[in-house]
């Protein structure tokens, strides 16, 4: 009985883990090529959720035709593209000027960007959030997994997250494009000599990473009401996960993301008071035992 309950919570925790995995994966991809910790990641995740909400509820009114609303399925594409384009602008106009300086400036710049985005949304939207009304019926309800009844929406999110994470891993570790990316991280000058447009590659990498954050934001609207502060607390947890996993590997960020979501879920049944801080405590323990992180090499 006890074990079953723990297993159920672990399964439910897998759902939170799906978000941690996508977000820390995006951070890892950006860090790999730009060497910048993208502090704006949480704000862009929030932005993804709001693109979905605004697209469904407000856009039609703004354009004068209710037919122009963007539904849930379309948002899964539209939000990453919109946020990805914003990423292109951020990288081209701002981040690009900082590569020659200490990496700390990249962190501070993206922190400033996060404050601006979050501040603007706080002024126009309620901080406690507004429900997203457009979850497709096919994703509502629950399904029987044999050992427990599992909400369909959560199953859907875990599957999407797994597919996206595996796809990204495959692209980076197993394709020609990924080889250029990895080579660009090590020796940008040599890669450029081969005729690869490295600055463009960097821009697109940043856009891809923040696009992933936006995708996570759209996925979140099924269970979380989009609110301007939803990214702020999330991103700090994801930072801790990144430290635990070790920034070196793509697979490390994904595995740690899912794993810690489950640990958090289990903590909720065993010792609920600690659920909010268990990730940070684990980070402290991992730092004591293995400063480079679980999957990091040093």
């Amino acid at each position: 009985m006890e074990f079953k309950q723990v297993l159920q919570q672990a399964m439910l925790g897998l759902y939170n883990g799906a978000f941690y995995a996508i977000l820390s994966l995006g951070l890892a991809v950006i860090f790999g090529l730009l060497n910048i910790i993208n502090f704006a990641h949480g704000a862009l995740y929030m932005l993804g959720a709001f693109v979905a909400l605004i697209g469904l509820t407000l856009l039609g009114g703004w354009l004068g035709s209710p037919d122009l609303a963007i539904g849930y399925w379309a948002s899964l594409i539209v939000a990453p593209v919109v946020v990805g384009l914003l990423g292109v602008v951020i990288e081209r106009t701002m981040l690009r000027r900082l590569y020659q300086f200490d990496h700390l400036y990249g962190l501070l710049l993206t922190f400033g960007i996060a404050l601006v985005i979050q501040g603007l949304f706080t002024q126009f939207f309620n901080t406690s959030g507004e429900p997203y009304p457009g979850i497709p019926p096919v994703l509502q309800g629950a399904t029987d997994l044999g050992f427990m009844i599992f909400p369909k929406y959560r199953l859907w999110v875990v599957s999407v997250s797994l597919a996206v994470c595996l796809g990204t891993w495959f692209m980076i570790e197993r394709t020609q494009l990924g080889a250029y990316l990895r080579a660009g991280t090590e020796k940008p000058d040599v890669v450029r000599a081969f005729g690869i447009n490295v600055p463009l590659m960097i821009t697109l990498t940043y856009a891809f990473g923040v696009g992933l954050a936006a995708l996570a934001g759209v996925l979140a609207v099924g269970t979380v009401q989009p609110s301007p502060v939803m990214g702020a607390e999330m991103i700090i947890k994801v930072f801790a996960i990144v430290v635990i996993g070790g920034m070196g590997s793509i697979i490390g960020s994904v595995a740690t993301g899912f794993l810690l979501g489950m640990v958090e879920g289990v903590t909720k049944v065993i010792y609920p008071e600690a659920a909010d801080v268990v990730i940070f405590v684990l980070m402290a323990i991992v730092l004591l035992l293995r400063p480079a992180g679980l999957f990091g090499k040093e």
Partner: protein
Amino acid sequence: MMDKRLWIGLALAGLIAPYLFYEVTLAKLVCFALFAVAFNLLIGYAGLLSFGHAAFFGSAAYVCGYVVRDLHLGPELGVVAGTLAAGLLGALFGSLAIRRQGIYFAMITLALAQIVYFIALKSPITGGEDGMQGVKAATALFGLVSIESNRARYYFALVVALLGFAVVYRAIHSPFGAVLKAIRENEPRALSLGYKVERVKLLAFVLSAALAGTAGSLKAIVLEAATLTDIRWTMSGEVVLMTLLGGMGTVTGPIVGAFTVAGVESWLANIGQAAEVSAWLRAITSAQVVMGLIFIFCVLLFRRGIVGELQHVMKRNLNL
């Protein structure tokens, strides 16, 4: 010689200020100035970006509030207790965070500070969302001087802050400070010269945390409250901004930065309250947005900060 004038100038300005401005605001600015000076010891002289300094500032404010309000002890004991508590917390966090460098260090300090934030949010002692209100000094300072009036509290804050500045000043102009700078410029070389790099960095971290705690305790005394705002990560960001805007690694930069940021914030608050402003104007003048914009501006175009830029211009003109 220049230094002596600096100290006399600071003390004089501090003495006269309450005749020109509102004491409570001034007292708050003084606390932030000390906070920023303490923070700058790390980022400016050791090259360590801590993104969790609100944990020290805020937890000290709570400890001080508890000592003064619930234990009915004097304000001087409250400040001492807050400082010690922040120093201990700093030793704990520092020994963990010091294992990683650069952006990792920043992320770790931020994550550790989040634990402290959750404790402050959940613990029955801290008052949760409401914070600790009514932190009134029950007894006079050292049993002699009452600090019931706003002005008296301001001068108390000023004296303690000046002492704090002096400690930092002494530290950075000592052999210890020289080693810190050497580590900032080239850590492997400092290591190969035989300096115990980790120990020196940890010492700087503890000193910085303790002084941030002094600042937080003072804030609890002068504003008679400790709140969640003091301990949330946005406060950590604010102290980074103060230091960056004033000038990292300069003696007076953080003080100038603290006054500028806090001054701009209270000015913006007035705009926001004006009834006739449009929603968009209110949005772009909200404290968070402006803070973010100043951040972006500083990082892209103004990396030396106000004092750093002034020093740079002066140096260039002297060389001509």
